[in-house]
Every structure is written in C-alpha cells, then in structure tokens.
C-alpha cells in the first residue's frame, strides 16, 4: 500500500465525502469526516518522510505512462504543502462538533452535507498539490472552489451569501483564466504533463501564444491567491464564513493557489522565462509591497475582528509574494516557510475567534470587552497567534520574517527590509487593539461569559503550541522549505 500513497492521499477524502452524505446527521457524519482527514494527515506525513528519504515519487494513474496518462508527482515542495493542508484539515475537523453545527444556517438533516463539502474541499486542495498534470490542476481547483463557496454560504449572517456570491464570480473568472492559459500551452506543446511541458516550452517560448498563456496564468492564479489589487473577494468571504471554515480556508486555500503559481512559474515556465524574459518580479515586487502596507493599514480600522484578520491575510500574502519576487533561495525559503507558518498563525487566530464568538455571539471588537479575564485560555491562544503574526522571536512567524529580511539584504534592497520591519509594527497595532479591549476594558455589567468548552480549546491550543514549537525547531518549516526552494530554482523537479 505504501507505493499507492499519492493516489490514496486524494482518494480517501474523495470516497469519504459521499459516505458522509449517506450517514445520519450528528455524530456519525462528523466521525467519518474526522477519520478521513486524520488519515489524510497520516498519509501526508508518510509521503513527506519518503520524499525526504528517497527523493521525488512519481505515480502513474491507471498505469498509463507519462506523458499520456495523468501523473501524480510528489517532490519536496508538494510533500510540504500536502502536510500543511492535511494537518490544518485534520485539526479543523476536530473542532467541536456540536458547537460548529450550532453555528450553521442549515437544518439539522442537512448537516452531513456540510461535512461532504468540507471533505470535497480538502480533496480538491490535496489534489491540486499532488498532481503533475496541468489540466488536473484546473479540475481540482474547481472542486475545492465550488465546495468552498458552499461552505462560506452557510454562515449565519446573511452577508455570508453575498460574500459567497462575490467569491464565486471572482473565483470562476480566475479559474477560467487558468483554463485559458493551460489551453494555450496545450496548443503550443501538445502535452499537459508538467514535466513534459517544461521540456517542450523552451523551443516555443518566443511565441506570442506562450506569452499570452503566461499572462492568463499569472492573472488567474493572482485572483485565486488574492494578490493585491485582486483581493477584494477575500475579506468578506472570511469575515462571514463560519469560524472553522474561515480557519480552514485562510490557512489552506490561498496557500495552495500560491503553490500553483510557484509550480507554473518555476517548474513549467522555468526561472529564465518567468523572471528574465517576462520580468515578472518587477510586477510582483511593487504589488506585494503596496498590498502589505495598504492591507495592514485597512486592518487597523476594522471593528469586526474576523474582517481584520482577513485583511491581515492579504498583507501576509504580500509577504509571500515579496519572497517570490526576490528570486533567490533565501527569498523563496521565506515564502515557502511562511506558507507553513502563516497556516499555523491564521489557523490558531481564527479558531480562537471561533471560541470567542461562540461565547459572546459575535466577533465584533466592542463585544470582546473583558473576555481576556473570563476566557483566559482562549485569549492566551489568541495572543500567541498574534505574537507569531507580528514575528516576535521564538515564534514561527519570526522564522519567515528572518529569511525575508536576509533575502532582501542579500540583494542589497535595504528599503524593502526596513519596510518589512515597519509593517510588522502595523501588525502590532491591530493585534494590540484586540488585546487592549479584551484585557483592559471592563466587561459590561451583568454579562456572564464562561471559558470555551474543551472540545474547542484543544485544537486551538494544538495550533498555538505549534506556533511556539516551530519557532524553536525550524528543521521542518525552514529546513524543508529551503530544500523545496533549491528544487524550484534548480530547474525541473
């Protein structure tokens, strides 16, 4: 069975999704979803171990040889992404059942469909990451996107519906752009396998068709990963989605879109074409810098804390793209390790907020007065996540900021390094606003708020402690990221 792990990675959540729909509402459907996501995590961990020990794995679907069949190809970058997605998927699935179901705008008999959509979203994200076939990327992208629109729309606020609709329109435009790009590549090369594409593209890279394909893929993935100024769908989608959904999507969906972008730019088109011929870094650099500054400033003025975190996500995506635009091992290491660290950070922050809004009813700032004393464990996790977001030493967030600054200084771009430090101060401001209200404002009279139930606290603290652990032991988040970065810059996987 070990040899079949790449296929099972996708198949296990895929099979469990329809099973969930058949199971009765309540415990059985939830247990099936949780078992499937923990199995997916186990498989991802085994895959990463195998890749690190023996090098890239190639799996031929249906036994059809490359380039005719669909190949699943796992190298250091894939395996690392699979681990992020599967780990967050498993932890979010363990987030207390009764609490989550209580916050959905669904009748009880429809609850199993929520888990079906969740598992399909997980399937899609894992599929995008594991596959080595360009068209397969589009198919899995749409599987994950369609299910995430459904997941967002079940939030209790009616604005969740509009947010899901906006995301649907933007996401479909983005995915269709990616589809056009893949189609144009197929016209020029006659192949869809990524390795084969990489081998055949240099011969035709001077044509306008390939350049158009590059442009379509860039814009399509930029919409999907919410790169400034194409980020407008993101804040509402995260703010009005149910908290576990927001935690899951914030920690995985945009990350996987960044992975797709890295895969196409570095593996398929190659560093030389993307950054020397097309000069992509000259576009990415200003966009990511403006994105970091403007999104951080907007985050400071939000009264809905979930919306604040959503804008902060846009800023963090800016950091990741900044690392990409450095086109160096240090810069890419910063980006790839920030994929991991930011998943931990935003996962723990959104889950802590889920605990808060479960007890006080909403994630609005004024409602959080005094919760620091009444919910010490929840707010403790929030503070750890916040420190990591700022990039305080000994937390995971510090690791990626460190590499980013090292990468910028290597290039001699000291203004960029200064800007990274300065924008970290903006993060201090918006995290401090929450901390101030929660700890130093007296709770309103007569309002009794209790600590969140253990079923919510355990997964939240698991992620919060991971933030501390990976700030000390950087062999996984930075070590493997470095390997992946070297793989990307070294040509074909």
């Amino acid at each position, binding site marked *: 069975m070990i040899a079949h792990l790449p296929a099972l990675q996708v198949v296990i959540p895929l*099979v469990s999704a329809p099973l969930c*729909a*058949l199971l009765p509402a309540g415990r059985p459907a939830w247990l099936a979803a949780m078992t499937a996501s923990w199995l997916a995590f186990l498989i991802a961990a085994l895959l990463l171990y195998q890749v690190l020990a023996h090098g890239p794995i190639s799996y031929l679907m*249906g036994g059809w040889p490359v380039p005719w069949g669909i190949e699943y190809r796992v190298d250091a970058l894939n395996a690392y992404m699979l681990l992020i997605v599967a780990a967050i998927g498993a932890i979010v699935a363990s987030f207390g059942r009764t609490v989550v179901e209580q916050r959905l705008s669904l009748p009880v008999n429809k609850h199993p469909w929520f888990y079906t959509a969740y598992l399909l979203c997980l399937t899609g994200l894992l599929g995008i990451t594991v596959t080595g076939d360009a068209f397969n990327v589009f198919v899995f992208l749409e599987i994950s996107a369609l299910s995430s629109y459904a997941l967002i729309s079940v939030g209790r606020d009616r604005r969740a519906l509009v947010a899901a609709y906006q995301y649907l329109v933007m996401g479909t435009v983005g995915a269709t752009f990616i589809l056009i790009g893949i189609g144009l590549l197929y016209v020029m090369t006659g192949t869809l396998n990524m390795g084969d594409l990489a081998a055949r593209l240099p011969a035709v890279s001077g044509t306008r068709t390939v350049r158009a394909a590059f442009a379509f893929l860039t814009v399509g993935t930029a919409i999907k990963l919410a790169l400034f100024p194409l980020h407008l769908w993101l804040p509402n989608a995260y703010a009005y989605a149910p908290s576990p959904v927001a935690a899951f999507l914030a920690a995985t969906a945009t990350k996987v879109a960044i992975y797709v972008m890295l895969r196409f730019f570095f593996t398929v088109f190659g560093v030389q074409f993307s950054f020397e011929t097309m000069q992509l870094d000259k576009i990415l650099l200003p966009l990511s810098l403006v994105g970091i500054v403007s999104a951080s400033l907007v985050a400071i003025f939000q009264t809905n804390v979930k919306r604040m975190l959503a804008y902060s996500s846009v800023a963090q995506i800016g950091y990741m793209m900044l690392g990409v635009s450095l086109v160096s091992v240090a810069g890419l290491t910063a980006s790839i390790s920030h994929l991991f660290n930011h998943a931990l950070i935003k996962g723990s922050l959104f889950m802590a907020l889920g605990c808060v809004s479960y007890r006080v009813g909403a994630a609005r700032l004024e409602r959080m007065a005094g919760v620091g004393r009444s919910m010490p464990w929840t707010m403790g996790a929030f503070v750890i996540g916040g420190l990591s977001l700022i990039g305080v030493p000994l937390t995971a967030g510090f690791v990626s900021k460190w590499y980013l600054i090292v990468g910028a200084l290597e290039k001699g771009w000291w203004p960029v390094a200064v800007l990274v430090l300065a924008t970290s101060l903006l993060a201090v401001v918006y995290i401090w606003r929450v901390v101030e209200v929660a700890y130093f404002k007296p709770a309103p009279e007569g309002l009794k708020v209790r600590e969140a139930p253990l079923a919510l606290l355990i997964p939240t603290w698991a992620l919060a402690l991971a933030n501390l652990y990976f700030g000390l032991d950087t062999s996984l988040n930075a070590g493997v990221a470095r390997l992946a970065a070297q793989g990307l810059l070294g040509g074909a996987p």
Partner: protein
Amino acid sequence: MKHYTIPRVVTKLLLPLILLFALYVQFHGDYGPGGGFQAGVIFGAGFILYALIYGLDKARRLMPPQVLRVGVSLGVLIYAGVGLLGLLLGGQYLDYNVLDSHDPAHGQHLGILLVELGVGITVSSVMVTIFYAFAGRGR
C-alpha cells in the same frame, strides 16, 4: 398543466424514448460517442420533463429525494470503488487491465463500463436534485 392535453400526451410518448436513448448513449459510450456525462444529463432531462408537465409532487413520488441522495453518492462510490479494486488486484489506481486476469483488453472494457455507469448515476441524480431544489423552493 392539467388542461393541456397535447404536451401531456407527447410527454408520455417521448419519455420512454428519451430514457432509452439515454441508456443507448450510456452503454454505447465505450465504442462510439457517448458516455456517462451525456447519458446522465439525458436521463435526468427525461425526469425533469415529466416534472414540468405533471407537477413536482408526482415526480417526487416517481423519483423520491431519498433515492436521489443515495444515487448522488453511489455513483462516486462506484467510480472510486473501481479504482480501489484495481489497486487491490495489484495494479495502479484506476488500472483497468488487472480487472480481467486473462485478457487486459476485456479488463479495460469492463473498467470503463463500470466507471461510466457510476458517472451516469451521479450525473442524472444530481440533475434531478438540482431541479427539485429550485422547483421546490418557497412552496
């Protein structure tokens, strides 16, 4: 639609043909143009036509939502199950060659037939489910 005799009679006449054509497209799909997606849509369209002419309640009696719920899931399970069967018989995932130990070509034939059957079941159930969901809203 109670008073419109012609659409009712024509529907009754057409319905068996539509369903039969869907089955033809389904099972001819491995040698000619066709397959599960197209057949599923045609099959679902037959039921939707029936529901349009004879009303949602009658259609629901003919094809209850509980059956559709199973159908939606069952098709995916058949598809993935065939893939897993290939894996258990010692091939790769979705390798149809191993389905028949003597004649790989026959294995391919069997595999694609089963997979397309799964696709057909899911697509037709999904089509009718979507129609029910929209038509039954706000009643």
